[in-house]
């Protein structure tokens, strides 16, 4: 029974078989991330999920689920879209608003610059993240859609999605206010 282990052709065949198996494992194995992205609910950009606060005063719809297992968007950047109860007026130049976000930096973002892009704003606004809860305001002229105002955060580490999934919000958000 043991004699085959002294035959060179068996050794060569063994090496080839093991290499083929390892190649199969590499090609046929899924990552944890791919499972999570598949099962985690995601919103298309501009989509909504119900977002209700405790006292019912919030006028917006949006997206709020624990980040460990859910994503803010299926786009390449974390985004949140807010839906006012009534449609916004769409006269160009005739409607101006400010959106305020109360944010706190996670450890990885303390002191880092984050791009805050709001629908209708003229340019990406860079904000320096503070460890404490702070308000960040962006002025815009009108939203892209009469029924939605979308906020996109450009995080400094989104170029390394394997380490920090770019679809995570990546910051702690407590309040969103529209004026």
């Amino acid at each position: 029974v043991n004699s085959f282990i002294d035959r060179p052709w068996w050794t060569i065949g063994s090496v080839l078989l093991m290499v083929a198996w390892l190649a199969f494992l590499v090609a046929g194995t899924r990552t944890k991330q791919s499972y999570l992205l598949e099962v985690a609910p995601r919103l298309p950009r501009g989509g909504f999920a119900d977002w209700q606060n405790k006292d019912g005063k919030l006028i917006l719809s949006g997206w709020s689920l624990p980040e460990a297992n859910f994503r803010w968007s299926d786009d390449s950047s974390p985004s949140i879209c807010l839906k006012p109860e009534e449609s916004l007026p769409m006269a160009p130049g005739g409607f101006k608003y400010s959106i305020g976000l109360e944010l706190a930096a996670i450890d990885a973002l303390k002191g880092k610059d984050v791009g805050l892009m709001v629908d209708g704003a003229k340019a990406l606004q860079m904000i320096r993240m503070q460890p404490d809860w702070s308000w960040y305001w962006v002025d815009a002229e009108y939203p892209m859609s009469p029924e939605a105002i979308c906020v996109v955060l450009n995080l400094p580490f989104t170029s390394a999605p394997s380490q920090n999934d770019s679809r995570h919000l990546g910051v702690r958000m407590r309040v969103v206010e529209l004026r």
Partner: protein
Amino acid sequence: LNDPAAGWLALTRGDNASWFFMMLAVTTAPILFMTTWTLAGQPGYPWDAAWYRAIAQSGYEFNGDIRIQHNVAFLPGYPLLIRLVSRALSLSVAQSQRLVSIALCMVGALFYTLVFARRLGIRRAAISVLIWTLSPFSIYFLNGYAEAMLFAVSALVFDAIDRGRFAMAGLLISFIMISRPHGIALVPAVAVALLVLHATRPGGAREGIQRAAAAAMRAITLMPLMMLLPIVLTIYWYTRFGDALVYKNAIYAWQVPPIGSGFGMLARDVMRSIGDIFRSQATTQQDLFGLKMIMLKPQVMASIWLLASVFATFVLLWRKEFVFGVFCGSLIAFDLSQSDILNIGRHMVCCFAVPYLLAAYLMPARCANESQEVKAIPRRTLFASSAELVALAVTGLFLVMHFLAYTQQFLARGWVS
């Protein structure tokens, strides 16, 4: 080994005392465990044992959501055996699980006794296995976990290695690899056994290199045999679930929130557990058959067992027990990289370095001597032998009390390891 069959010969030609020792090694742990189980009201085996029953009962189930615990996170070899026995003997899955666990524990104890007997003599071997099977975390050889499979199959592998049956050893490793991932520690053990086999042949340095190369070639040739069933299993997983290592991904559900594993975390937790001994926080009071006993907490016991195993493994290598030393060393290395303080006791249970050396060094030569010849004993020898015997008995008692306490704790659905 000069005589690979020495274990069997020692058994077949052994005196009554040797038979008695061997019977003790094979039957004591199953009897104590089943007695405790009966006294506890014959509960169903909890924790992972329930997952194995589920696989044996209805096969793998997985809906693709790795945030939820699925039975695909468990390897199929052990539940497959439970299902086969259940069908062959018309038993329920729970009955079959109990039977398979006891049978595997007894097979492991028998074959380890024979394997150790070739090195230590039958009496020391039997005492070594007795200490091992009654050590605290050996409840996992009997409580419906796949550790029983690793225990039995690793014993058969070492027996096959001793007999030079490397193809058989390869096939057995293939089976354990689809039952318990820790079976991978047997792969370097077989490679070293091949190396030792070649190294014992006469020759100079150049021949030595050639022999090492020949041993390496043989080990490589054996690899597909050792990986035969894992290859089949990964193809099955890929065909059914679209993921060749779905098992590894499914474990994610048990890692949220992360406990923290790996060498750094484990080392910190082990040191903290050892520190608890000095802070008088290492013990807990437990009602053991109506007696109030002070027992070491499982994490503290696991930490002590881990450190003792590391030390004992170095001693094994120093004694030139290379195959055993490499197996135990590989098992420890695998655990240090993968395990955490909550599981390390169970993961280390097949590392036999401590019980092997306890019997080898503490069992007095006179007790281990299987010849019937009686000689006058010098007083100094008698004193030393008595001290050794007392140390062995105290160690054994300490371990068996924890074996019973942890069995009771496990059956009451407490977490042991």
